[in-house]
């Protein structure tokens, strides 16, 4: 049974019955059947095998699961896979092109902006989204722009430094 609208007629389906979705993830179109309750983070991790996106909490607090939905950072633990139907999703695996890390990834490496690396994919996705919205931020703006991402290792000092360096094109 099709539960997507494709037009303006609503369709209903049985409780928990799978829904077909079309999602472009890192440039590849995926057509999948998912349970409505499937979270986007579980969809990318388990259905697509993109395990770079991590889960660090169950309250939308830590931001480890941040991905881009149509170019903006969102917490993929608080988005249903069905809500991403027809959207473009970029995960951490989608940032590097032909084996070359993105400017933000390089900035994190060059400024030692990561230690254990668990928060890092979400942090990099949030920081990348931040610079799209605020291309030349102050230190305060960087800190506020990353308020939804928790890190336990770095004390944030070098993360902030990395984002500022990336913005400055260093």
């Amino acid at each position, binding site marked *: 049974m099709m539960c997507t609208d494709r*037009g303006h007629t*609503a*369709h*209903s389906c049985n*409780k928990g019955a799978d829904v077909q979705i079309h999602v472009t993830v890192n440039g590849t179109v995926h057509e999948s059947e998912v349970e409505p309750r499937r979270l986007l983070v579980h969809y990318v991790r388990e259905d697509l095998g993109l395990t770079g996106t991590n889960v660090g909490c169950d*309250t939308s607090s830590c931001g480890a699961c941040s991905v881009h*939905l149509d170019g*903006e*950072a969102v917490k993929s633990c608080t988005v249903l896979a069905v809500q991403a139907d027809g959207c473009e999703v970029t995960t951490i695996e989608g940032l590097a092109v032909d084996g070359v890390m993105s400017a933000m990834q390089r900035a994190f490496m060059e400024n030692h902006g990561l230690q254990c690396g668990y928060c890092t994919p979400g942090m990099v996705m949030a920081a990348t989204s931040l610079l799209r919205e605020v291309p030349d931020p102050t230190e305060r703006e960087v800190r*506020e722009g990353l308020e939804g991402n928790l890190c336990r290792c770095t004390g944030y000092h070098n993360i902030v430094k990395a984002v500022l360096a990336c913005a400055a094109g260093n």
Partner: protein
Amino acid sequence: MIPAAFEYVRAGSAAEAVGLVGEFGEDAKLLAGGHSLLPLMKLRLASPSVLVDIGRVRDLSYVRDEGDHVAVGALTRHMDVQLSGVLLEHVPLLAYAAGFVGDPQVRHRGTIGGSIAHADPASDLPAVTLALGASYVLQGPLGVRVVPAAEFFKGFLTSVLEPDEVLVEVRVPKMGGAGWGFEKFTRRAQDWAMVGVAAWCRGSESGVALVNMGSTPVLASSVMVALGDGAGVVDAAELAVAEADPQADLNASVEYRTHLAKVLVRRALQTAQTPHTKP
């Protein structure tokens, strides 16, 4: 972490959503950005049997200048409220406060309508729109009705919104150059307010509302009356909790919350009365 199973339907329009929630009854919940509902479902504090997804109703995302007021579509995201030129010009308090909701990821998904319809007293925008004298447009099977914010909130997470109604628009009076202040007191920036205050004043007119000071957003009428009667800010702020019913939680006792409300009302009003300064 994993919500209980539910049936998922999509609405193509507000009218269709009204029909669907009417059809499925009280067990159905509307899903907009999902940033109020999904966290509750993940902790299984909410287990609706049907989700009606209105997130794709693009024509409910807008900010329009309507002369004496600004109309904000219910599905306008916090980020779009924050950056709206119309709101920055005519209702800067709302735009400013929207920038304090959650964090950027939340503001990319969460919507003003979802936040207000959820009626969480700890959320910022219900109190901000209450202070601003906004009205909410509710669409039901028999048509639309317009409910003033002051009559909308009924209790913790409850409002006059009927199960078969959809909040479709928020109408906010233009501030007409009124001074304003917004104070959100948190332990961490991403947290809900321990106490929040939205305030504006223009001559003898004012609006003051409190976040997280009772089971609903609280209109601090006594402060507004006192200001209208010519009381100074310091004295008026002492009346901050006259309408409030604060509860204790992990971060604050009733006494502390009461004290904070007075301090923050005073500060918000002082900011509002300071010419040419933005908070």
